[in-house]
Structure formats: structure tokens, C-alpha cells
């Protein structure tokens, strides 16, 4: 199992694409608040986007009057349009020790030999007990219960346009002299009819209200109304665990181990009047975007080559509901083939507002060379602050499209530049090849490949024959008898009659003993005729064989005439063929090859 996991991990690593290149690294340092009281903590967030894996950790010099603590890091990896992008967020806590005004120097990060710096941040530390924030508009004691604890929900506007940004804050006020053991049962205000986005972690600060110092815990959201009409933000609820008000009223089981009681706090509902976007003045190409935006277009590279794709990034930047921002109206660009390559959203939430940018990427493939002017790109949106529709446009764009390919590395003597690209010429005179193929017959060559088959067949036959001869001595004698006899007969010298006659007799005796499967010495002339007759050899052939043998005996023993030796030998050859033929067709011939 472990091995399998390793293999999967290895495969995953092999298939993981390299991070997207080309984008400049971005280093950002942000604090959750710039004004605190002595002894309070500021959260510092350092965000590193687009850095390499070898980039070092951020270097931070805490200003005098602060102590700095590392609070961890997190890495976020995301795919956007098929490219891998990663961001690392380092979090630190700055503990304020002394009142005063300070500047947090730029945070620095070193990557690939280059140093990146963030902006410096101004910080203010007020004496302990002083308010760290001035009361917000509408802030007033609502301590109706007189317990020094109360909760409020506030929004920055009660009238808005559809999809306009509204900031909602839930605040819990705790007077400095009030003890609060625990908070539980928090229920955010109901926001039906709104698109809601969190605005980051809880903020803690102090305010002075009517002479009393209050500790405030604040949670914020951004709301975007999704429809026109009167919408209601429902009540929020929180339960505070505080010391019991009276010992006498406390029952044995009523307030727990620490003499607590639960104090539920509920906020008032708020009505929001949402106006529809005006019909009048709505520009052509308006896709429903509301907010304040700018537009910028940027080519991925300064050069373009005919037939080679390059990217045009159009960024809509500003404040508003970026997720719903639609693509700008793309002009018809001549001289290009254009493909949509998707979009990517980057959002920042700062000071109760959602800002950021949405980048739309178009892939352009130039179809011709030369300088090409591109019409500006327009983007229309409704500005709720000005209560009017606005259209922003990119600056005029111009790009020089070069010929398709250059010779890489050709420098010094002037680069060779391809001026155009076309298909290669046809294969010439293939008709001649076709003609030759027709004349010769293309398939003839295939016959060559039958040779191994034929050779295999022959070899198989030879192998079987060889095995049969080795395993059956009778078969071997009969099968070889004729060839041996014929060879021996051809070697007889007729000039020495006696020797020739003896050799002839030996040829016949050997040949016939092979066929009859007897020893040469065991071949009796007296029984030879009978044995040949039993083998169904033709009587004429038998007579002629016996005659040959008789003649040979006469010559050998000096009783015969020697003048016809050559003729006898010649006749013996013909007779041998005749006898071989007869014997092969006889029952004996069944055991031959």
C-alpha cells in the first residue's frame, strides 16, 4: 500500500506542470489596523505571489516599541486558465509596548538574486486606556439594559442600487469595567436577497462613548443586493456570559460553577431600499456591472509573429462585485484570429470594501505581418456614487507583427528572417512512380516472402526423413540401396574383366541384401529367386538379375567370355533402375522413403 502511494506521488509529481512564468512577483504587507493602544496586538500579513520556490522568507525589522512574533504561514495553489499560480501568506503579530508614532520599514524578500520590497506602513500606539478609534457615525450608547454590554448592526447605506456594495458591521460593545467570561451562540444578521462576502477576521479596538471606554469586537461583511425592492437585514444575535447580577437570585443549578449568567443580545432589523438600475442612458454593451472601475489592456509580449498566438490581457480594476463583472465588448479586429481564453479574479478586502481586478484573456493569432492598430476596448458599468452609467476605454493599441519565424541564436551578421510561411511543394512526378508500379506489378515483391515458407517446408521434410532413417535401419538400408548401388556400378572399371565381374556381383549382392534385409553372406543364390518372387518382382527382371550374377561368376572363375564386359555393365545400370522401380512398387517398397 505504501509502495503504491509512493508510485502515485511520483506520477503526480511527473504530471504536475511547471508554475506559470512571465508574471512579476508581487509582495504585499498589510496590517489589520494602524492604531492600537499600548499592550494591544497588530496582525501583520505578508503576501507573496508569483515567487519561485527558492525565494527566502520575508525579512521584517520591527520598529522600536514593538515586539514581533511569527504566527505561521499558509500556501495557496490555484489553477487559472491552465496555469499554476501560488501565493504564500506569512502572518506575524506586532505587540505594541510604548505609545508613539512609528513606521514599519518595508518588508523585503530575496528571490533569484533580486530583492523585492513592500511599502512602509505608519503605525500609531496610544496610551493604554485611550480610545484607539473614534466613534463611528451613529455610534451611541444603546446600553438599554444598563449592563455595560450591547450589540449593534450597522450598514453604511440604507438606500442602494442593485448589486451596489453595502458594508455591514456587527459590533459588540463591552464597557471596560464589565467582566465578560465567554461569548457563544453568535448568529449573523439574516441577509436574504443579498450576495454576502466576509470581510476578514474579527477586529478588536476601543472607543470612547459618552465618556466611557468601550472594548469593541467587530465582524464585517460586504453585501450586494441581488434584486430591487425593499429588503430587510434580519436581527443578529449573540450570547454573553457575564457575572450573575444578584447572589440572592442565584439558584443552586442556575449559574454554573463560576456564578455566571447568560445575557442574550439581539440587534434590530434594518430595512434597505434597493433601487433598480435606470433604463435611461444605458450604454450598448452594458452587461450589468455596478461599481467604480478602470480598464487596462496589456499584450503578453512586445513582439508578435504571424501565425503564432500571443495573449492580450484586459484588466477591469476597481471596487464592486467583481465576480459578476462581465467581459468588455470585444471589437472586431482585422488581421487576427481571436480566441477567448477565460478570465481570472483577484479580490482584496480592505477597510470595509471589496476591491480587486478581473482579467480577461484573449489569444490573438496574427494572420498578416506589419504594424496593426487595434481599436480600443470599451467597458460600461453603472457608477452608484455618480448615479450614472460610465464607459471606460483602453488606450489605443498598436503591435508590430513580424514574419513567422526567426533563426534562433543568429546574431552578429544579421538574422535570417522568414518573410512568410506556406506549404511545401507537391511531390513531383509521382505519376511516373505509379506508372512503374503498374508495369511491374506492385505485388510481385510480396512473393519473396513466401521463400521462408518454402524453405521451412523443405527443412521439415528433410528433418522427418532424417529421423525416419535414424530410427528404422531396414528403411535406411532400402532407401539408400539404389543410390549406393548406382554409385558403385558407375565406378567399375571394365578394362579389368575379372575385377569388374567381381564388383558387379558385389553390387547386386549388396543391393539385394539391403532390400531383403539380410546379411550379404546370408544371401543364397539357391533361395534368391524365391525371395525375389515373394517380393512380387517381375519374373523377367528376376531372370535378368540371376543371369547377371551367373555371368559374373563365370568371368570370376574363368569360364566366361570377357569381351562383353562393357555391355554387361551398361545393361546392369538399366536393370538396376528396373529392379528398383519394381521393388518400390512391391510390398517391400512400402518401407522406403
Amino acid at each position, binding site marked *: 500500500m505504501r509502495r503504491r502511494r509512493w508510485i502515485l506521488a511520483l*506520477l503526480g509529481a*511527473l*504530471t504536475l*506542470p511547471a508554475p506559470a512564468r512571465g508574471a512579476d512577483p508581487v509582495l504585499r504587507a498589510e496590517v489589520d489596523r494602524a492604531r492600537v493602544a499600548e499592550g494591544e496586538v497588530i496582525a501583520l500579513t505578508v503576501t507573496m505571489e508569483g515567487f519561485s520556490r527558492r525565494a527566502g522568507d520575508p525579512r521584517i525589522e520591527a520598529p522600536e516599541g514593538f515586539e514581533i512574533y511569527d504566527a505561521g504561514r499558509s500556501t495557496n495553489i490555484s489553477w487559472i486558465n491552465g496555469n499554476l499560480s501560488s501565493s504564500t501568506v506569512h502572518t506575524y503579530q506586532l505587540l505594541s509596548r510604548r505609545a508613539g508614532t512609528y513606521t514599519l520599514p518595508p518588508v523585503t524578500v530575496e528571490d533569484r538574486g533580486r530583492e523585492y520590497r513592500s511599502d512602509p506602513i505608519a503605525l500609531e500606539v496610544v496610551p493604554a486606556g485611550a480610545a484607539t478609534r473614534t466613534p463611528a457615525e451613529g455610534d451611541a450608547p444603546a446600553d438599554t439594559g444598563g449592563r455595560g454590554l450591547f450589540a449593534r448592526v450597522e450598514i453604511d447605506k440604507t438606500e442602494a442600487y442593485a448589486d451596489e456594495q453595502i458594508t455591514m458591521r456587527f459590533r459588540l460593545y463591552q464597557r471596560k469595567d464589565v467582566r465578560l467570561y465567554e461569548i457563544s451562540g453568535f448568529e449573523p444578521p439574516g441577509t436574504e436577497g443579498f450576495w454576502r462576502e466576509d470581510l476578514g477576521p474579527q477586529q478588536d479596538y476601543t472607543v470612547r462613548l459618552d465618556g466611557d471606554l468601550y472594548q469593541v469586537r467587530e465582524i464585517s461583511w460586504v453585501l450586494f443586493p441581488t434584486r430591487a425592492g425593499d429588503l430587510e437585514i434580519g436581527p443578529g444575535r449573540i450570547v454573553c456570559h457575564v457575572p450573575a447580577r444578584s447572589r440572592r437570585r442565584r439558584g443552586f443549578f442556575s449559574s454554573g460553577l463560576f456564578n455566571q449568567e447568560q445575557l442574550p443580545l439581539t440587534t434590530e432589523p434594518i430595512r434597505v431600499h434597493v433601487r433598480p438600475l435606470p433604463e435611461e442612458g444605458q450604454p450598448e454593451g452594458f452587461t450589468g456591472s455596478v461599481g467604480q472601475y478602470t480598464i487596462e489592456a496589456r499584450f503578453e509580449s512586445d513582439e508578435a509573429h504571424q*501565425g503564432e498566438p500571443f495573449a492580450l490581457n484586459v484588466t477591469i480594476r476597481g471596487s464592486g462585485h467583481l465576480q459578476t463583472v462581465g467581459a468588455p465588448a470585444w471589437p472586431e479586429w482585422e488581421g487576427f*484570429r481571436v*480566441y477567448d481564453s477565460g478570465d481570472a479574479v483577484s479580490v482584496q478586502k480592505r477597510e470595509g470594501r471589496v476591491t480587486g481586478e478581473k482579467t480577461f484573456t484573449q*489569444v490573438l*493569432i496574427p494572420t498578416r505581418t506589419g504594424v496593426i492598430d487595434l481599436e480600443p476596448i470599451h467597458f460600461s458599468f453603472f457608477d452608484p456614487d455618480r448615479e450614472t452609467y460610465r464607459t471606460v476605454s483602453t488606450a489605443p493599441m498598436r503591435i508590430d507583427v513580424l514574419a513567422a519565424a526567426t533563426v534562433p541564436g543568429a546574431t552578429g551578421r544579421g538574422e535570417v528572417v522568414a518573410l512568410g*510561411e*506556406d*506549404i*511545401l*511543394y*507537391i*511531390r*513531383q*512526378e*509521382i*505519376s511516373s*512512380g*505509379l*506508372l512503374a*508500379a*503498374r*508495369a*511491374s*506489378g*506492385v*505485388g*510481385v515483391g*510480396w*512473393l519473396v*516472402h*513466401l521463400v*521462408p*515458407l*518454402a*524453405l*521451412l*517446408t523443405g*527443412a*521439415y*521434410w*528433410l*528433418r522427418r526423413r*532424417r529421423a525416419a532413417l535414424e530410427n528404422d535401419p531396414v528403411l535406411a538400408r532400402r532407401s539408400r540401396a539404389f543410390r549406393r548401388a548406382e554409385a558403385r556400378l558407375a565406378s567399375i572399371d571394365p578394362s579389368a574383366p575379372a575385377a569388374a565381374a567381381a564388383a558387379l556381383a558385389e553390387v547386386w549382392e549388396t543391393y539385394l541384401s539391403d532390400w531383403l534385409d539380410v546379411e550379404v553372406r546370408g544371401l543364397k543364390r539357391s533361395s534368391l529367386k524365391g525371395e525375389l518372387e515373394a517380393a512380387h518382382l517381375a519374373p523377367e527382371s528376376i531372370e535378368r538379375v540371376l543371369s547377371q550374377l551367373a555371368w559374373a561368376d563365370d568371368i570370376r572363375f574363368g569360364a566366361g567370355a570377357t569381351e562383353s564386359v562393357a555391355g554387361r555393365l551398361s545393361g546392369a545400370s538399366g536393370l538396376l533402375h528396373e529392379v528398383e522401380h519394381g521393388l518400390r512398387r512391391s510390398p517391400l517398397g512400402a518401407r522406403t522413403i
Partner: protein
Amino acid sequence: MKRALFGILLFGGAVLAGASGPPHGVVEAVRAAEAAYAAGRYDEAVAGYRQALDSGWASADLYYNAGCASFKAGQIGWAVAYLEEARRLAPRDPDIRHNLRIASARGRDLLPEEEPSWFLGVLAGVLDGIAPRDFIRVLLILIWVGAAALIARWLAPPIVRRGAGWALWVVAAVAALTAGGIGLKAYQITSAPSGVVVAAEARVLSGPQDGETVQFVLHEGTLLHLGRWAGDWREVWLSEEMRGWLPVESVVDLHGPRWFR
């Protein structure tokens, strides 16, 4: 023995009958097309090459020339179809690859491509470079070497027989690899797009009749998969999600490689 010889002759005759030269008219049509191309009469050249191809005679060269002529005549869809046929017959031919790249770049549709894993990418790259007839060549070599090794195993002296035995094992191993390669190549061929859009713009409908919903629009030169017929309509798809019907005249079938070409 006589029967074996008779069988061999019969098989040889069948091979000869099945693999004769180009039929009458092909050479003349190609010759006319070559002349027309040289004179810049590209439509006429396309017609000549198409006549030769319609006669059933096909080769990588013929498809290549037909693709070039179609490109010059402005028929990008047909150019991609012919050059794709040529590439499948001769996958390592650099001229064919070059012209196919240029013709494909003229197409308007940018199709999403799945990034295969490293292993599958390498395997597909290797298979892409092998034509079916390459497998036939390897098999023929194996037949020759295997036959020689078998004959030696049967008839040669013992010292040679041992070497022949090892050679037979090697032949068997290569034959097994080749068989696997043939299987993978067959899968690659059957799963590859089987058609090309030849209409300048083709609206893919949800059903095989006018008035159905337009699913998406394709342009000439786009490779796609072809399926069922329904009268004058053909089922097409790019992926599981993107499928529909096109008029038959909007697309052309890719015949794919034949193993003995």
C-alpha cells in the same frame, strides 16, 4: 510435397491478384493534376487527384499532393483531411507534418486538449511515429529470422542448434512486443477522429433534421468523430458533451491507414 507446392503457388497467386499496380486512369489523372498544379490551376489539380483517389488507389504521396492542391485552392477542410490521411500513412514524413501544421493553423476552431500524463504522452508519441505498415515490415523480418533459426534448429550441427534456440526466443519476444504494439496502434487508430469538417461553417444540430437546436458551430478543418447516418445527416461529436448532427456534405470521412499500404 506436391500438395505443399500447390498451396504455396495458390497463396502467391492470391497475393499477386490482391496487390496489383494502379488501375487504368489513375496515372493519367495524376499526370494531369501535376501539370495543372504546376500551372497554378489548383481547382483542376484537386479534381485530378480526387479522381485518382476515388478510383481506390491511395498512397501517402497521392494524399499529400491532393492536400497541397486543396490548400492552394482555398479548401482548408479538404486540405486537412488529405494531409491527415497522408500523415497516418507516413507518420514520420516531415513534409507532410509541416504542411498539415500550416493547414490546421488556418482552421478557426480551437478545441480543448486534455494534457495526458507523462507516460501516456510518451507512448502516444512513439505510436504516432509508427505506421501500420512498419509493423508488417517487422513481422516479415521476424518471419525470415524465425524461419532461418528454425531450419538451423532442425538441421544444423548441435553447436549451431543451441544458438538457433536462443534466436527463436528473441524472435518470440519481439513478436510478442510487436503484437502488443499492433493492438495499441489499432486502438489509437480506432479512437482517433474519423472525419473532418469541409464546410466553411457547419452548425451542429441536436437532431438529424432542419429546425433542431443549434448545439455549436464548427468550421472547416476541424477534426471530429463521425457516427451513425440518418438520411442525409451524420452524427458527429467532439467529446461526450459536444455531439450532434451535421449534413453529410459538411464532413468527409478519414479512411485511416490500411495495414498493407
